[in-house]
């Protein structure tokens, strides 16, 4: 199948280095301590953060840092085919773990000993890159909850199809079976905190693709920063400052 | 009476036995036991602190997890778990380590008949390897009864399917009893004549069953001698190290 046509356009009309449109909204779950909605093209996720709060299960309490937990779930209507699958299948568990580890690395957990932070991400629509979208949404939600972070983690994926590195794969490109590199990136510290790849790729190509994904992360980071700034201004305005 | 066995054995002949112990590093005790092509691996973890579910302030708890070669755990595996568990409980001195749990994991490597007896032998060897205090050994064997009434020992899978009935029997074996005399002894019968476990399948007459008992009992003497022989040198080397 041709994923990049001779004119250099992808199936959805993007150029290889082009990201899908991203959109974010802070405070979409009123009852949560922090929440955000994040869209990357048709992929749409909601993240909600509860905490820091008392540890629910005493045996899990950690005396010198906060306990970070994460649950990833997909709505029944999130994919093309309607499905009802039991909660906690392998894929969800794996993604929950990835998100938890990524976020835990950037939360300053030592400031909140003996407490618990819950991150819940809910996929409303899945069209490739749910992992990245969830991490971005979770970052926003954590920032909204006012939880001290080392840096804003952002994430983006990149792939390699038809001998072309592609940024931000959608579902069709993702399921083509080519390599798919997901990067989690700390923009201020200029460090990679998450790196995952399926399939195989030669080392030098891999570096290219990873670099592309990192560029994507930086773009997301800029957008997230803007959104947060805007949100803070709104808050100031409402407080009459 | 002439009996044709596919592998040319006589009716009382067992398949070649093999036993090796201490084969797993992380387990507290482990052993593999094979009878011909049937091979079972057993690992023992414990005694470890008892979990709330099977906590008992007076007795240690033995739990058995049966892992089939392939496929999922069904009713058969649950039943085998229960039989192995009860059999091991009967040979362990449970009052020595109260409120602890000892886990025995039985992994089937290959099944070519007499699976349950083979697993019990493996588990027993693994318990010895782990140094769990035992009252005596348990030696298990399978006796098969053919339509014509003759009995063969240690059948292969093919033979098991052809036979009218079979019995899995577990006998105790000990040199010196550590328990007070009289509490277990019945007048006129030595302890080796008793059975720990009996599971049968298929219809047979009572006399046939008693005949199976006799034949099985005779064969286990050989098996226990083998078991003791395999375990002995290592025990002495262990103690020399400790000494």
């Amino acid at each position, binding site marked *: 199948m041709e994923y990049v046509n001779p004119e250099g356009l992808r199936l959805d009309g993007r150029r290889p280095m082009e990201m899908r449109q991203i959109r974010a909204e802070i405070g979409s779950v009123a009852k*949560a301590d922090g929440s955000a909605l994040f869209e990357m093209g048709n992929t749409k996720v909601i993240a909600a953060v509860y905490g820091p709060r008392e540890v629910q299960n005493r045996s899990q309490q950690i005396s010198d840092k906060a306990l970070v937990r994460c649950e990833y779930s997909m*709505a029944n209507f999130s994919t093309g085919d309607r499905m009802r699958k039991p909660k906690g299948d392998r894929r969800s568990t794996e993604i929950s773990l990835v998100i938890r580890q990524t976020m835990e690395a950037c939360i300053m957990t030592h400031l909140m000993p003996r407490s618990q932070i819950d991150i819940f991400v809910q996929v409303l629509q899945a069209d490739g890159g749910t992992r990245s979208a969830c991490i971005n949404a979770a970052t926003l939600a954590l920032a909204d909850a006012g939880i001290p972070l080392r840096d804003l983690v952002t994430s983006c994926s990149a792939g390699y199809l038809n001998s072309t590195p592609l940024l931000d794969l959608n579902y069709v490109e993702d399921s083509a079976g080519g390599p798919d590199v997901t990067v989690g990136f700390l923009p201020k510290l200029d460090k990679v905190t998450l790196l995952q790849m399926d399939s195989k790729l030669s080392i030098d190509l891999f570096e290219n693709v990873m670099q592309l994904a990192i560029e994507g992360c930086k773009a997301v980071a800029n957008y997230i920063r803007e959104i947060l700034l805007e949100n803070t201004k709104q808050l100031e305005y409402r407080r009459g400052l | 009476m002439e009996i044709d066995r596919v592998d040319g054995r006589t009716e009382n002949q067992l398949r070649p036995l093999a036993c090796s112990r201490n084969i797993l590093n992380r387990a507290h005790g482990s052993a593999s036991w094979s009878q011909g092509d049937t091979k079972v691996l057993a690992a023992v973890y414990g005694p470890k602190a008892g979990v709330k579910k099977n906590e008992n302030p007076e007795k240690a708890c033995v739990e058995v997890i049966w892992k089939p070669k392939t496929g999922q755990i069904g009713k058969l595996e649950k039943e085998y778990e229960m039989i192995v568990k009860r059999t091991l409980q009967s040979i362990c001195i449970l009052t020595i380590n109260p409120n602890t749990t000892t886990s025995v994991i039985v992994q089937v490597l290959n099944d070519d008949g007499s699976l349950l007896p083979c697993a019990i032998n493996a588990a027993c060897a693994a318990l010895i390897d782990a140094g769990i205090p035992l009252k005596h050994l348990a030696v298990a064997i399978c006796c098969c009864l053919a339509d014509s009434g003759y009995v063969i020992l240690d059948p292969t899978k093919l033979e098991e399917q052809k036979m009218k009935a079979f019995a899995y029997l577990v006998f105790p074996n000990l040199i010196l009893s550590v328990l007070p005399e009289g509490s277990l002894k019945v007048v006129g019968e030595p302890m080796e004549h008793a059975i720990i476990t009996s599971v049968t399948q298929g219809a047979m007459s009572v006399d046939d069953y008693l005949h199976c008992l006799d034949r099985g009992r005779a064969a286990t003497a050989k098996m226990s001698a083998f078991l003791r022989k395999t375990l002995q040198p290592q025990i002495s080397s262990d103690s020399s190290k400790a000494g």
Partner: protein
Amino acid sequence: MVGLSLGEKNFIQGGIAQDLRSDGRKRLTYRPVSVETGVIPQANGSARVRMGATDVISSVKAELGKPSSLQPDKGKVSIYVDCSPTAAPMFEGRGGDELSTDLSVALQCCLLGGKSGAGAGIDLSSLIVVEGKMCWGLYIDCLVVSSDGNLLDALGAAIKAALSNTGIPRVLVAAGASGDEQPEVDISDEEFLQFDTSDVPVIVTLTKVGRHYIVDATSEEESQMSSAVSISVNRKGHICGLTKRGGAGLDPSIVLDMISVAKHVSEQLMNKLDSEIAAAEAVEDDS
């Protein structure tokens, strides 16, 4: 879990007794309702309804299937509710299952009518393609994104909005199919059948706090309830379903009184919803 102090509890109860609730509403006033349709493009129809801080999404997916042999002239509709852990940490893992089942059952009872289909909001016979052979099955999936009380009313409204947003492809049946075989069909990409949702009832939940009952309770108010009655009423003013929550008993005469109040309130809610849905549809058409 709402943890309230004694003072807060008294404040809520006292406010309700004096017809002035904590957020300034009267006993029988709803919070502002906002409706957004077409939020899930993959679905045949979808809507997001917000009532104050309660936020739910409903989607309708239509699939062709075989009608049940007991009712060969009717299509199938099923409703499932899922409570996302984003709405409350207690819905984590299997924690939301119990509430999800309760809500699904209550919605089925309120919207799908009796066994024979009488009183159903959706005309099941309109879903039939070939009698006894092929019909549409509507799968209505709801997701609770944020929960601040009165989930059932919000879910009912979301389903109504999602159904008005639903377009079911027109199916052309190829001639010549007979006997056992499934008829060959041609599913149109362009032509869609719109639903007539004027018969879909609205659900009004009356929550009894103290001696009075209120509509559209927030979760703080729900924590003070003794019992709640959810009544689904259609445009004709007929009751299409009723369920009760909460353990405390009610005198039969109070139940009847609640029904008449619900009927009255339902008219306002119905009109408000209709105008919101129409506005949302207009917005979607523009974009």
